[in-house]
């Protein structure tokens, strides 16, 4: 019998050959899940626009044109609004659309990098805890509990204020702090796989532990990993935005959306679009990633919905 979600080595039966492959079933389910489709589409659009930033907008995000500062976006009824700057300019005359697009690059970069770092850390200790149980599990649980007992934002701020903030520092600090969800989820997923017969079978045959982890455990927990990865990427993006907003993330003049909102804080009563536009961008990016993650979870393991 084919069990979607479980990967098993062996000679396929006639039923297995004729039944749709697990990949095909997944693909079919994915195409029907509107949350996944919408989220994935929006995310794809954002990524493409970020990558094509130099082509879409000819301006330099760092180019200050004080003579053209605070031009409102095109939908304002003001005489100053112009198609040259469809999203207006900020207080230093920099084109907002350009800043937005390059800001997308920053957010995506930080999101992916921090997610990768925290993913490696969290998955490693989570899988080890789930697979070996016993003392290893106890130690990992303790580590996770300790990490959960510390206020992430404050610790990040403190460390960044001591070392000095930059893109790299932010990525590493975030990566080293947000691995807890990875650890918890992967531990649980590994525990569930651990008790299945094919693990025992592999051990009986004499497979080494690293090999079992790689060939038997990994394929069966990877769907959980992908779901957590997307959610943590969104988490990292929001955290970076908050850090930059407080002035301890990416430093000016780099275009980070959080920083853009912070810089516009003082002007928001008169030119609210300055905070609305990057805010909406952040919201859409995080929303699309969350929808994608939720959709992936629904499609690969609907029983884990909560």
């Amino acid at each position, binding site marked *: 019998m084919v069990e979607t979600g479980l990967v098993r080595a062996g000679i396929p039966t006639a039923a297995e050959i004729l039944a749709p492959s697990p990949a095909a079933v997944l693909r079919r389910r994915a195409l029907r899940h509107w949350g996944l489709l919408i989220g994935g589409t929006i995310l794809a659009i954002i990524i493409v626009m970020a990558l094509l930033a130099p082509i879409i907008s000819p301006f330099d995000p760092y180019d200050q044109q004080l003579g053209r500062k605070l031009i409102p976006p095109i939908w304002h009824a003001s005489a100053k609004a112009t198609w040259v700057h469809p999203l207006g300019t900020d207080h230093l005359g920099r084109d907002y659309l350009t800043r937005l697009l390059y800001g997308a690059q920053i957010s995506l970069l930080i999101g992916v990098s921090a997610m990768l770092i925290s993913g490696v850390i969290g998955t490693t200790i989570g899988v080890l805890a789930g697979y070996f149980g016993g003392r290893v599990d106890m130690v990992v649980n303790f580590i996770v509990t300790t990490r959960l*007992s510390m*206020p992430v934002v404050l610790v990040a*701020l*403190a460390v960044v204020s*001591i070392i000095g903030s930059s893109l790299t520092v932010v990525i590493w600090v975030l990566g080293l702090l947000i691995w807890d969800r990875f650890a918890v989820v992967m531990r649980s997923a590994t525990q569930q796989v651990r008790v299945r017969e094919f693990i025992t079978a592999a051990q009986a045959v004499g497979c080494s532990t690293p090999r079992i982890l790689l060939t038997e455990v990994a394929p069966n927990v990877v769907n959980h990993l992908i779901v957590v990865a997307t959610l943590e990427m969104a988490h990292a993006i929001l955290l970076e935005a908050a850090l930059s907003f407080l002035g301890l993330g990416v430093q000016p003049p780099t275009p980070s959306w959080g920083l853009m909102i912070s810089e516009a804080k003082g002007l928001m009563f008169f030119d609210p679009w300055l905070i609305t536009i990057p805010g909406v961008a952040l919201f859409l990016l995080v929303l699309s990633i969350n929808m994608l993650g939720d959709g992936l979870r629904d499609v690969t393991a609907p029983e884990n919905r909560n």
Partner: protein
Amino acid sequence: MLAFTAKRLGIALLVALTVSLITFSMIYVSGDPAIAIAGEGARAQDIEAIRKFYGFDRPILEQYFSWLGGALQGDFGRSFTLRQPVADVIAARLPVTITLGALAIAFALLLAIPLGVLAAVRPNSIADRFALTVAVVGQAMPTFWFALTLILWLGVYWRLLPITGSDSWLNFIMPAIALGYYVTPAIMRLTRAGVLEVLSSDYIRTARAKGLRPMTVLFKHALRNAIIPVVSLAAVQFGFMLGGSIVIETIFQINGLGYLAWESIQRKDLPTMQAIVLSLSVIYVLLTLVADLLNAFLDPRLRVT
């Protein structure tokens, strides 16, 4: 029940100790804390003064134990930059942050639990989709941006609420909403899932078979069981809000612990930062313990372990 509490207490203590170690070593992350505090371009004699004031020239272990010993007695030393005992400053600001956190969690619970129950009782209905939309939006919206937007609309355009300061309780409404909205989705989802699962359990069928009224079935029987994980989640989320309040407090200029942390960072007052992180972490640990105990209190089955 006693053994259960003792065991949890033991683990909590161990965690708190580890956290204290980490917090202590935080200021050494750049190598020399005296230089970090003094800032760039500081004169050698200022750096030396700071070093002497905080005792950074003593052996590390001695520093740690004297710091920890002091902390246990509620003494975090004096702040070089603040010129007052750190503990006093923290004690003055902590109640404000706790008030803010409490209001925020209250808002979150008042919004999330009814929505979650409604969504579970009518799954896939309009109410359900509305609740899920609230959740999805809440999880994607950056807190600081939501706060600024609230200020714009409720404070400036509609002039409903005051924007800054912490004089009256009105000042706390917008911050509480902004802070609480971030944890609403998790609570709502958990409530919804819990109620949905509980409603299909056998004892609910028994309750209906006894002819109990639908409200009784829902609130006395279903919610009573479904709410258990929500309560401990709320306790933990309360802790997160205490830590995450720095953003809200700086925006609304509320004189709480978060704002103090912000000021300390600006002034490079690392020891105060340390003290704040340690205090909050200890509160977290306590809250997790409380959450565990609440769990056991609410679910008779758990009292055996």
